[in-house]
């Protein structure tokens, strides 16, 4: 039977379409499975402990004789670290992108971008290693008031370096995408090059830059390895920038050995909280992006 017999071909068209569809549906399936496993294991636990005492209590002691499961210290630490690292990293990244875009001679731009993109591929453990061996001792010896190197400050510094390449890349592309007519128009009206760039081009690129911001925030929020190597790991309420604390991600990673069934469910519940945070971040981004008329 020749391969190109018509009946076979009709069958083949249908079969392949089905195969392709199933593969595409797999993403949906995987997402469903993840949500199912997390929520099925985590929600009942939260219900059992009570949402308020789970989320807002600051005592985390799953292996004590009277186990306590309060994650608020971790929530705070996560928020502090994310906010600080994004403030530093995205801020510097944006300024660096502007410099690359406008104030660097064009023959240097491609090699510099190439360099920065290359550095975007450095694994997060290596950032953690750098943080552990360079940043933590530095903070401990020259900055810290209490002689402690671990903590929110170190973690934020490490994370801000980590999100630099992303922020620079995305912001640069956003700036590049702005029509050069805006810049030329501003110059023609008498603005200096810097004024034209900061007052006209930068605002025009804001949706792309905002996308970069959200990306960076997501990375900072979800990072685990770089954080656990420099933040200390003690589940206490963060009061200063240089004391040993934990983020939500660190809580899950570090608790991986505490495996009573309740402790495991507590970890899953922490994962649920983290998942919801990430979801809120992504959804509000998509929503805002949709509102601006589909700009990206």
């Amino acid at each position, binding site marked *: 039977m020749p391969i190109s017999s018509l009946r076979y*071909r009709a069958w*083949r*068209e249908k079969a*392949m*379409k089905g195969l*392709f569809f199933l*593969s*595409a549906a*797999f*993403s*949906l399936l*995987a*997402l469903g*499975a*993840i949500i199912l*496993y997390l929520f099925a294991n985590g929600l009942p636990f939260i219900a059992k402990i009570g949402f308020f005492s789970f989320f807002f209590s600051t005592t985390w002691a799953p292996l004590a004789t009277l186990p306590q499961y309060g994650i608020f210290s971790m929530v705070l630490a996560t928020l502090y670290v994310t906010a600080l690292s994004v403030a530093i990293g995205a801020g*510097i*990244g944006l*300024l*660096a992108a*502007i*410099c690359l875009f406008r*104030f*660097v001679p064009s023959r240097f731009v491609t090699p510099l971008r190439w*360099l*920065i993109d*290359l*550095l975007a*591929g*450095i*694994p997060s*453990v*290596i*950032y*953690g*290693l*750098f943080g*552990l*061996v*360079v940043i933590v001792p530095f903070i401990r010896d020259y900055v810290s008031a209490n002689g402690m190197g671990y903590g929110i400050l170190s973690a934020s510094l490490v994370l801000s*370096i980590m999100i630099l390449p992303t922020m620079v890349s995305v912001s640069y592309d956003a700036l590049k995408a702005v029509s050069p007519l805006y810049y030329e128009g501003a110059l023609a009206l008498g603005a*200096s090059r*810097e004024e034209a760039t*900061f*007052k006209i081009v930068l605002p025009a690129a804001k949706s792309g830059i905002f996308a970069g911001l959200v990306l960076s925030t*997501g990375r900072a929020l*979800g*990072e*685990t*390895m770089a954080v656990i*190597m420099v933040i200390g790991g003690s589940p206490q309420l963060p009061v200063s920038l240089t004391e040993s604390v934990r983020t939500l*991600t660190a809580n*899950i*990673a570090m608790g*991986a050995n505490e495996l009573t069934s309740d402790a495991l469910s507590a*970890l*899953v519940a922490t*994962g649920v909280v983290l998942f919801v945070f*990430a979801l809120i971040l*992504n959804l509000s981004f998509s929503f805002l992006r949709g509102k601006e008329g589909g700009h990206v």
Partner: protein
Amino acid sequence: MSDLKAFRRSRNFFASLKITSMVALGLSLVALVSIVLFVLIRGTGNITFQLLFGRYGTSPSIWPAFLGTLLLIAVAVGAAAPIGIASAIFLSEYAERDFWLIRCLRIATETLAGIPSIVYGLFGYLVFVVACGWGYSLLGGGLTLAIMILPLIVRSTEESLLAVPMALREGSYALGAGKVRTIFAVVLPSASEGILTSLILAMGRVVSESAVLIMTVGMVVNIVPVSPLSAGTSLALDIYYFASFGYPEEASATAVVLLVFVLSLNLLAFLLARLFERKKGLHGQS
């Protein structure tokens, strides 16, 4: 008079912003370069034959980690690539008429991409370590990584497919080819460079990942894995282990190895792009 002052002040302010931005660029470059330099300086001296290829006895070896990493790449990319490419084909070639279907699938892909890696680790633990009863295993880690890199592959494959001009497809249809033949004989070959690049980048992702593995493969640093179901470790995970358990020299040395690995992958992607430029049209597919 006051106009001139305000004008000058504004000019100076923005000029100072320019200087700030140059400082920012400088800082960024210094920070990023110093990480690489730090790793290279501290680590290269500590690379020994024992560390790379020896047996993990009284002195550490990353040979188990090396094997583990290769296995993870094979499982993760081997599982995610066919599914991801097929998904992208469906989204770009078949799904024009079903607006809601596409939206659902896209939202699913986007959401998957936004899940923190440690949550994937948790999922992998619950499913593969506990529910499947495998305990810690490289297979479980690899499959979890597969789900994690799936959105990446789908997204960039779809981009590559959409970049193939419609005129090429029309030419194929007008010659009597059906959709399947058009996809395999015309569209995929045209998109193949982009797809291959995205697979290599996905490999880079797998090699760099550690949060997922910390919960699924067991971080068994000293035993050479014998099967996919063995527990094991990876290069990235070993760095964490060495750093946290008192082997700073080995940590830096392993970091050098990992960096070389990741950089080689990027270089490979770059070279492949060049190779495809030359190969196009010489021995075309039928």
